[in-house]
């Protein structure tokens, strides 16, 4: 029998030491089961039918022939689906009506769910779904995103997010500036594309709706489903053990709602898995952006004026703001600041959060504009940033919790060999390749969300942590194991962390780079409480001793501050201007992002973010057909993400930057890695070629275009 006073060598220092993933063996052997892989008796398969038109009304759905097909169990659509609650404030605010499936005959965008076909096997469901004849009354659509669209407006500010912030007299400072950069930048529609498609199995068990899902926050999904189906919060349980990537896309989506509807009708488990093609219209995406940056500076590069305006598209049913201009507010000092995010409603699916929402496209524009300013002023890009380093928040006036941007640049510049760089563009060549290097700054807000956790001392001397966390590949399960071990002063192998079950209670979702910070906070508090209880001595009963925590009060008590993680991005590229090919030869990122819990997984995550930046810079772009308003080639052959061959040696490192407000010292690392990475690459392409690329992705045809007429013709090729 183990007692709480059994002497064990206290092991502290798990945090900060490299540990392989606790579920690693399951993942490399195929034993880890993801959402669509849990077996169920009597499982039925649902297949969504989505609109092939962009705007209009459903005239008819001819379900009868499909119901007669082999194995087909039901066809759900707006003519027979149960009503859903539509007026509520969900865990993410006002609900996106995209979730309210089959409630009416209107089609607000291409790929809108119009029916669910359920059959005994997935092959039968697929063929039946594809055979379902849906007729539409078409209405004209507008999917043409562009700056200057007459529908452009400035959205209402929210308490947490101001649409527009101003300081000083922008026009006067621009007039007084010796150098002005005024440039427009665009980023295209980008998609998350986690490798694991969205999948949910719903069933009723003893009056509870059970959903086996893949998501970034099971409690959020459970609460949203409870509200949609008018159920008590306790009557819905959502579990999500392993998650094959999320990046912002794995919240509550049509597939969970459809599965729950069908399970209610059929009284048996129903699984709905999205196809890769459906993921283009049903899970959200990063809106295209059109941005204008104006920088006014003295001759030495000191900023007098900073103007950054962003524009993104949203759907006609839901307002989502891609906050591209926010990044400028806390980044650089300037006498006058004007930042504004604008929106235009089009007949497109609702966009959503995607890895570093706002910062990813915003930093591309801002950090490229800084590079242009450095060129114009004849100042080194790193020196320029140092010259505009603020002491307090440039717009907020608030102190920084910590700001080690310049430390990142110093360490990074040394490792990258920045000092030897000749700033002049177009001078270096390696065979057919022109070479160049570029840099950019990165930042991402440090956030925390209220969370609860339970830590149990088991009778066998082990410890169990329960928290509705999600490990979307971040290594959160492992990080929390290390955090709990240190807080309990035991070896990590005595700690089991259970996550991804809404029954474990309220907790932050895996988003905003705030998951591990928020959960670690709660786990640490509960563990400390448990240690105090155990310190009193006595036996641990068979059911164990459990301590619970809730960080709501602690997080609510945080004083207003500028809290951010920072980084310095470096890239070297090779450009063949005769073919338009761009290859990244190396990347280095140095980050100041709080205490690093697990260096092995953290480095991987930083590098992964930087590769997202590479992919954004060179590859990613979803294209719409103007005539139909639908996507062109919505698949992974048409939408390119970086393949292995595109990715060189990418290195990430960090400077010591523990957060003094967080019990573990964590800031958050999930998103800062992508921020600035695309700008560093675009700046390197300029350094290689002398041509600025302000529109992503930097495709071969775009690289070729400026050289088209400049290429040596036979008659000019003589000397």
């Amino acid at each position, binding site marked *: 029998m183990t007692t709480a006073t059994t002497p064990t060598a206290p092991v502290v220092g798990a945090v900060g030491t490299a540990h*392989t*993933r606790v*579920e*690693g*063996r399951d*993942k*490399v*052997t*195929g*034993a880890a*089961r*993801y959402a*669509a*892989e849990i*077996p169920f008796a009597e499982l039925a398969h649902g297949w969504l039918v989505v609109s092939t038109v962009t705007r209009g009304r459903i005239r008819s759905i001819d379900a009868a022939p499909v119901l007669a097909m082999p194995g087909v169990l039901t066809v759900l659509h707006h003519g027979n689906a149960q009503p859903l609650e539509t007026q509520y404030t969900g865990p993410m605010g006002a609900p996106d009506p995209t979730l309210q499936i089959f409630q009416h005959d209107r089609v607000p965008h291409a790929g809108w769910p119009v029916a669910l076909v359920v059959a005994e*096997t*997935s*092959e039968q469901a697929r*063929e039946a779904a594809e055979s379902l004849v849906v007729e539409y009354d078409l209405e004209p659509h507008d999917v043409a995103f562009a700056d200057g669209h007459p529908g452009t407006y400035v959205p209402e500010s929210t308490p947490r997010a101001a649409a527009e912030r101003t300081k000083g007299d922008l026009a006067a400072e621009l007039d007084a500036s010796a150098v002005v950069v005024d440039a427009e930048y665009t980023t295209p529609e980008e998609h*998350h*594309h*986690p*490798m*694991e*498609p969205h999948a949910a199995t719903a069933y009723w068990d003893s009056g509870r709706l059970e959903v086996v899902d893949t998501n970034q926050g099971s409690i959020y999904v459970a609460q949203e489903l409870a509200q949609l189906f008018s159920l008590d919060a306790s009557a819905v349980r959502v579990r999500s053990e*392993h*998650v*094959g*990537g999320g*990046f912002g896309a794995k919240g509550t989506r049509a597939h969970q709602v459809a599965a729950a509807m069908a399970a209610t009708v059929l009284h048996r488990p129903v699984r709905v*898995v999205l*196809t*890769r093609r459906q993921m283009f219209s049903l899970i959200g995406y990063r809106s295209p952006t059109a941005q204008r940056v104006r920088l006014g500076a003295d001759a030495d590069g000191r900023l007098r004026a900073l103007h950054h305006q962003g524009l993104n598209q949203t759907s006609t049913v839901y307002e989502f703001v891609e906050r591209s201009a926010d990044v400028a507010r806390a980044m650089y000092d300037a006498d006058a600041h004007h930042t504004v995010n604008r929106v235009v409603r089009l007949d497109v699916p609702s966009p959503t959060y995607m890895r570093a929402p706002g910062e990813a496209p915003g930093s591309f524009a801002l950090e490229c504009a800084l590079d242009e300013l450095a060129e114009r002023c004849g100042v080194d890009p790193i020196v320029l940033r140092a010259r505009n380093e603020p002491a307090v928040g440039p717009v907020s006036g608030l102190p920084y919790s910590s700001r080690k941007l310049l430390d990142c640049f110093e360490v990074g510049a040394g490792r990258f060999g920045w000092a030897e760089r000749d700033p002049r563009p177009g001078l270096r060549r390696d065979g057919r390749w022109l070479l160049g290097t570029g840099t950019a700054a990165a930042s991402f807000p440090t956030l925390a969300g209220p969370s609860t956790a339970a830590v149990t001392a088991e009778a066998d001397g082990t410890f169990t942590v329960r928290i509705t966390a999600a490990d*979307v*590949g*971040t*290594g959160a399960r492992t990080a929390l194991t290390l955090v709990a071990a240190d807080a309990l002063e035991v070896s990590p192998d005595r700690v089991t962390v259970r996550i991804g079950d809404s029954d474990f209670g309220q907790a932050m979702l895996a988003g905003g780079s705030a998951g591990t910070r928020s959960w670690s906070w709660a786990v640490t508090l509960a563990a400390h409480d448990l240690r105090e209880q155990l310190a009193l001595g006595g036996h641990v009963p068979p059911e164990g001793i459990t301590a619970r925590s809730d960080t709501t009060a602690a997080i609510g008590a945080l004083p207003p501050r500028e809290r951010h993680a920072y980084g310095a991005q470096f890239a070297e590229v090779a450009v063949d201007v005769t073919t338009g090919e761009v290859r990244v030869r190396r990347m280095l990122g140095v980050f100041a992002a709080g205490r690093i819990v697990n260096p*092995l*997984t953290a*480095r*991987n*995550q930083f*590098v*992964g*973010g*930087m*590769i*997202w930046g590479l*992919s954004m810079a060179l590859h990613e772009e979803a294209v719409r057909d103007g005539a139909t308003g639908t996507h062109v080639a919505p*698949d*992974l*052959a048409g939408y390119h*993400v*970086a*393949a*292995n*061959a595109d*990715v060189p*040696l*990418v290195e990430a490192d960090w400077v010591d930057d523990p957060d003094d407000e967080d019990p573990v010292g964590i800031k958050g690392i999930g998103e800062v890695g992508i921020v600035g990475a695309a700008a560093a690459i675009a700046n390197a392409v300029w350094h290689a070629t002398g041509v600025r690329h302000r529109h992503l992705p930097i495709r071969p045809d775009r690289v070729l275009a400026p050289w088209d007429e400049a290429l040596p013709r036979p008659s000019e090729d003589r000397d």
Partner: protein
Amino acid sequence: MAPSTAGAITLTINGEKHTLPVDNRTTLLDALRERLGLTGTKKGCDQGQCGACTVLLEGRRVVSCLQLAVAAEGREVTTIEGVADGDRLHPVQQAFLDLDGYQCGYCTPGQICSAIAAIEEHAAGWPSAVTTDVRPEAGVAPLTPEEIRERMSGNLCRCGAYVSIVQAVARAAEETAQNTSGANEMNVAGAA
């Protein structure tokens, strides 16, 4: 001859014979996942564009989402569940685990199956798209990081774990080469 759109097939999977009924439409991927419970093989795109469903068919890597199960009748399939030697992980699995050659883990079984085959293809002298001189007289190009990247490009990893994937494949290839050359030496010794 009446058309038959379904029937029973026999597959040897990880050394074990399985007879299972399939719809002719069933892909090898769905047969593994839905009929046999072998869910280690992943469905990422279902159209040959991501590599998550990679398995070894008669020892060669293929995407199981474009392989009809009925057309694999009588053949040998190795999935991620069959590459370890009992409890001892395959060197590629161990390297992925040790070097963190993954994040979310969903592309991982496909990456590992693909890497096992890629190492064998290179050892067999197959050139790749980045091999400078493909003529047989030029010999086998060393398995550089650039060669690994190209040979592993049929497996997308959205988390962006490519850097550690390449390191893991390189380590496993080195170990495999050492073991192979060790075995050869033993054979030579035995012959002597």
